[in-house]
């Protein structure tokens, strides 16, 4: 498998929670990676370094063999993030939020037009369905429904739809199951990990990395990365991770 993302000796010095120490890892094409670790282990920091929100003080982050800092706007669109707090824009409608997923490929006139009316409602509806939300649920307002009037589960689907609309090559999902009931959580995870018959991810991405607090779900993934105190403790195929290792990971 060829390497999509490569981190070499990455060092991030921030607050207690924003800390990564000599971190090296690779993510390959076609992989579904589970990122485990107790709270404050550095999972969100790692995702922020990968999506370019945090810049490490040392080390290199290579995306398709090129330094992350050298990526242009179009290449930045290749990494999509499903944030833990979703980061939907409360003041906009469902359709406008989903369309925000393609801002990286559009100019100012398109962005302004999207604030006037929902552009391209068909792709938005398609992404919404792909995220598991039938448009009928939104009532007569449909895509024009303000995001602030959605339930927690519906908001999660809209964030997922925005991610699908972005069509990223690598998906980073930061604790996407944290505040969901078990049924919705299972469905969201299905959507993120679903594969086509040819083995590629159903929504077109080449790899996905999901951070979670549920060691019982690692069998759904190909590989497990586990962090503690900013250090990488486990980097192994999912089937090779033992219950003992997981216990050690969460032990105080």
């Amino acid at each position: 498998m060829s390497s999509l993302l490569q981190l070499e000796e990455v060092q991030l010095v921030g607050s207690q929670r924003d800390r990564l120490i000599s971190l090296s890892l690779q993510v390959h094409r076609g992989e579904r990676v589970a990122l485990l670790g107790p709270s404050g282990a550095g999972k969100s920091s790692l995702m922020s370094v990968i999506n370019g929100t945090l810049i490490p003080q040392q080390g290199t982050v290579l995306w398709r063999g090129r330094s992350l800092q050298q990526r242009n706007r179009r290449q930045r669109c290749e990494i999509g993030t499903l944030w833990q707090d979703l980061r939907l824009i409360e003041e906009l409608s469902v359709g406008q939020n989903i369309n925000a997923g393609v801002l990286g490929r559009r100019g100012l006139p398109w962005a302004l037009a999207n604030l006037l009316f929902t552009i391209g409602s068909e792709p938005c509806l398609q992404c919404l369905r792909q995220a598991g939300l039938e448009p009928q649920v939104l009532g007569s307002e449909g895509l024009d429904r303000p995001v602030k009037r959605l339930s927690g589960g519906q908001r999660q689907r809209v964030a997922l739809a925005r991610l699908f609309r972005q069509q990223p090559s690598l998906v980073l999902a930061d604790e996407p199951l944290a505040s969901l009931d078990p049924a919705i959580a299972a469905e969201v995870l299905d959507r993120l990990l679903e594969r086509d018959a040819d083995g590629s991810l159903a929504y077109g991405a080449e790899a996905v990395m999901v951070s979670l607090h549920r060691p019982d779900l690692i069998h759904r993934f190909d590989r497990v990365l586990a962090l503690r105190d900013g250090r990488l403790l486990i980097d192994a195929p999912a089937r090779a991770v033992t219950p003992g290792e997981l216990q050690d990971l969460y032990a105080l």
Partner: protein
Amino acid sequence: MALPRPSAPALAVLPALALLPVLITVLAGIHAGGVEIWMAFLSAAVHPSLDPLLLKALLRALQVTLAMALAGWSLSLVLGVLLGCFASERLMQTWRWPTWPAWILRRSLALPRSVHELIWGLLLLQVLGLHPWVAVAAITIPYAALVARVWRDQLDALDPSRLQALLQGGAPPLAACCTALSPAMGTVLMSYGGYRLECALRSATLLGVFGLGGLGTDLQLSLQSLQFRELWSGLWLLGLLSVSLEILLTLWRRQSHKAQAGQRRLCLFLAGVIVAGITGSTWLHVLLPDSGSVVWQGLALPDWGRLMLAAAELPWLRLIYETLLLTVLAAGIAVGLPPLAMLLVPSRPWQVVLNAVWALMRLIPPPLTVLLLLLSNRPTLAIGALALGLHNGGVMGRLLREELEQQSADQQQAMGALGASARLSWLYGLFTPRSPGYLAYGAYRSDVILRETVVVGLIGGSGLGWQLLESLSSFHWDAVLVLIGAYALITLLGEWLNDQCRDRWLQS
């Protein structure tokens, strides 16, 4: 494609389109000689006159303006709070008084509120003669009515449960009100009261431009005689005072927002208001010792038949159309320009430049901008709209900055991580979350602009303002009264319309 259903950020940026017809008209009207005068004006900004005699005179005039502003501000706050309490139906119910006087008082306050301080100034000038207290009264009357409205609205919007709990416990009504309402109302008073002080300083300068004394008069005389270096000496002094005041108020506001500001802080503010009033009045008396006492010059009571006759003579359609057009264009520029300017170049250095531009725009009273533009242009409605729009754009620019400072960077980062450019990250991640609040301010500002059309109308030769000046100059009192009535009516209608929009935007 679905029907357009503009979101709050689009509604905030699109009004900037008003700039197009205004700029086309203004640029087409520029004459060659005017460019030279403008260059002289701009170069004088870096070479203001430092003549000690002039500076002494300007400093004295600045003190007069500040004293007028302090006295007017203090009086309007005290009166406004009292009137606001008596106009509050909730307070009347608490005190077991009938609520109909509160209703009548609330309706009656609409008239003084809807008439701009300049009109009050010119009217009082006619009936009381030239006296420093005319300017103070002109500021106090509409400001007190405005403060009363805000105070009453806030009082009636408060959760009554705490007050009811105290009353049921047997507390006397006045003590219960002070205990239950003062924490929330204290914050309102300190925040809104501070803002009104800035407005009072602007109004005192503006009244001076129309001959009521202080720095405004000196600025206007310097401009009319094309003494740009003298003009800039005055502007820089005024700028220094405004910036100092703004910094003090910002520091005060930041402290007040820290929840546990407490009752001691409120008492301190109230004491400051009273001291400001006493200082302002004493200062005025010291600076202008020969002003004598106010003498009522007399004004005949209007006759209904003559009022009707005066109303029939006026070209209402044209006057109202021009006033509304002036308002729409100026409000479009004021609301739309600050976010548009930030959107085009969302960088830190550009923001610093913009802040300086907005500060300058706030500083120069709109009639002076009109006079400046008229140096190189012929009088048109577009000139008035540009002057009014830029001045109020200065106020909106600062409000926008304050709004954006309260927004966390998370959304903007999320947009950046999506690959959006800095411009689009600013638009979607930073501006959009704050746009409903900004629009609500914009709706309030449009009310102010409608009232202020009188200021540029007087100079720009358009709308009800111009007609009002004509009638005032010819002592045609019947027409003056009819026009003031019409102005009040349009302003109240505009206020009602904007209230509807504001509620919708804040709830959406």
